[in-house]
């Protein structure tokens, strides 16, 4: 199927060469590429054919879609995103019902082995009726679509790690894409939701170099998830100086001190929020006065209270320690009694 070049598409939408190069420079920097690579990124991106993308939303809240489509306004990131040939996304597309499903099947057939599959939401493995699209369960839809995909982007923490649907007690048996698909490259773009520029960055890299970015141990692009929020946080100097806000309305909070004591998960969370920020680079949660909740990490929902400091241990119960005290006391008394008897025997002998 013939599709316009991405460069032509952007020009037709009023994107100037200057804006385009600025986007390429930013994206190259975010991907950890040298400035010498910018012309190559720009040239490759301008000449790229709009890739066919099939987006399957499963057990999700549509937050990831909201994030990526940047509902607040049209940006170059959103245009790059529009620049792809999004052949199926049941939230965004105009078609519905059989027409929508036919569009998906047609796109899959015409681009078999070449299309990019984006999945957001986790996949229920319990009752098949927990989540269905056009009467089909999520598991079989994913398995079918994955077979013809060149690569899969697991968008958001639900698709990447199971997310909130997979949180204890996980009533639907929700799992991540990687738990089901084993024979295709999977890029986990985690976050609840993920940062828009991260998905466009991954798409740009794919369009530019025809290959997937370098991934970390959790399958996330290293260029965006290589460092922790804490590493890049502007409040880090306060942490180093031991200046912490004790509550959300005390003097420390007003002074913008570190939110560690209020449960900030920055030190254990890998994401680019502190550098890329949100809403056109306006701010990120810590800048808005709330600690990071670690949403781009696996199992973030089950890691204790969001307002408990990171140093918090999972102690079990006071009963466990109480039992330990009882056992220790009994052992001590018993061993002393044994020793006393031996002493007495020795004295008697």
């Amino acid at each position, binding site marked *: 199927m013939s599709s316009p070049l991405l460069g032509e598409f952007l020009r037709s939408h009023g994107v100037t060469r200057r804006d385009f190069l600025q986007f390429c420079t930013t994206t190259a920097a975010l991907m950890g590429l040298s400035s010498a690579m910018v012309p190559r990124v720009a040239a490759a991106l301008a000449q790229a054919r709009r890739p066919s993308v099939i987006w399957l939303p499963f057990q999700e809240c549509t937050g990831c879609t909201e994030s990526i489509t940047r509902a607040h306004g049209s940006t170059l990131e959103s245009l790059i995103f529009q620049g792809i040939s999004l052949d199926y996304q049941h939230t965004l597309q105009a078609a519905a019902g059989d027409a929508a499903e036919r569009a998906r099947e047609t796109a899959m057939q015409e681009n078999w082995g070449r299309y990019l599959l984006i999945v957001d939401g986790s996949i229920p493995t319990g009752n098949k009726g927990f989540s269905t699209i056009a009467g089909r369960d999520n598991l079989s839809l994913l398995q079918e679509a994955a077979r013809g995909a060149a690569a899969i982007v697991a968008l958001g923490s639900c698709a990447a790690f199971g997310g909130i649907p997979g949180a204890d007690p996980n009533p639907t048996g929700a799992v991540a894409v990687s738990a089901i698909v084993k024979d295709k490259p999977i890029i986990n773009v985690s976050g609840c939701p993920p940062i828009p520029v991260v998905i466009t960055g991954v798409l740009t890299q794919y369009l530019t170099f025809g290959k997937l970015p370098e991934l970390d141990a959790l399958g996330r692009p290293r260029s965006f998830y290589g460092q*922790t929020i*804490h*590493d890049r946080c502007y409040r880090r100097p306060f*942490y*180093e*100086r*031991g200046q*912490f806000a004790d509550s959300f309305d005390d003097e420390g909070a007003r002074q913008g001190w570190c939110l*560690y*004591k209020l449960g900030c998960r920055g*030190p*254990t969370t*890998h994401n680019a929020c502190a550098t890329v920020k949100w809403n056109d680079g306006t701010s990120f949660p810590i800048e808005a006065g709330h600690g990071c909740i670690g949403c781009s990490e*696996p*199992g973030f929902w089950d*890691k204790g209270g969001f307002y*408990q*400091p*990171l*140093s*918090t*241990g*999972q*102690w*079990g*119960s*006071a009963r*466990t*320690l109480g*039992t*330990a*005290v009882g*056992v*220790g*006391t009994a*052992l*001590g*008394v018993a*061993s*002393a*009694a044994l*020793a*006393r008897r031996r*002493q*007495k025997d020795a004295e008697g002998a």
Partner: protein
Amino acid sequence: MNLLDFARGPALQWSLVIFVVGVLWRLLGVLLLRTRKDLSEPRQAAAWKGLRLIALRSWPRKEFLGGTAFGEVMGYAFHIGFLLTLFFYVPHVLFFADIARGLFGTDLHGLTGLHWPTLPNGVVTLLSAISIAALVAVLIHRIVNPVKRLISNFDDYFSWLVTIAPLATGMAAFAHLGGWPYERLLAVHLLSAELLLVWFPFGKLMHAFTIFVARGSTGMLFERKGASL
């Protein structure tokens, strides 16, 4: 479950249980031993006055100063640095506050009305560095000194290792050394502290609980016999 979850969860709970059981077992096992009746006439009726030996032995005696000064200085440097780091570093204080919450349903402030003061991170870093330096110095002294080397056994070296490990890993976590992710450094630090807890009751580290009891009972014995303290 990742390494940090393991370190903060089951490893922490089990190491605490082993620590509590072990300490009580050993402490009560010693304290409840039968003391042999002393039939001799006491030289000093008020034997309890010998308890002052607890304080007296904490300071070097002039006549032995030449031989003990190094150990005393290094001992104080290590212990002060270690204890201040342990009890006044902000994340540690939060950690202990959480124990109180787990046990009593409220933190220390709610329990006592008192605020637990903390030290600035720079001060804690310096104190930790002093502690590590003192530990390295005493290890070298132990190895170089022929008598100390002769009387040292596995317990001495292993106790040294599990003591310096939390200090070293804590500093590594604080400084983000080695290019490791913070959570892995934090997990290793927690695991090293848990190793210390597990080994504590069964090796020479138990002196933290027995030293003052031993000094007190020795002092009372000496006092009863009329010996000079």
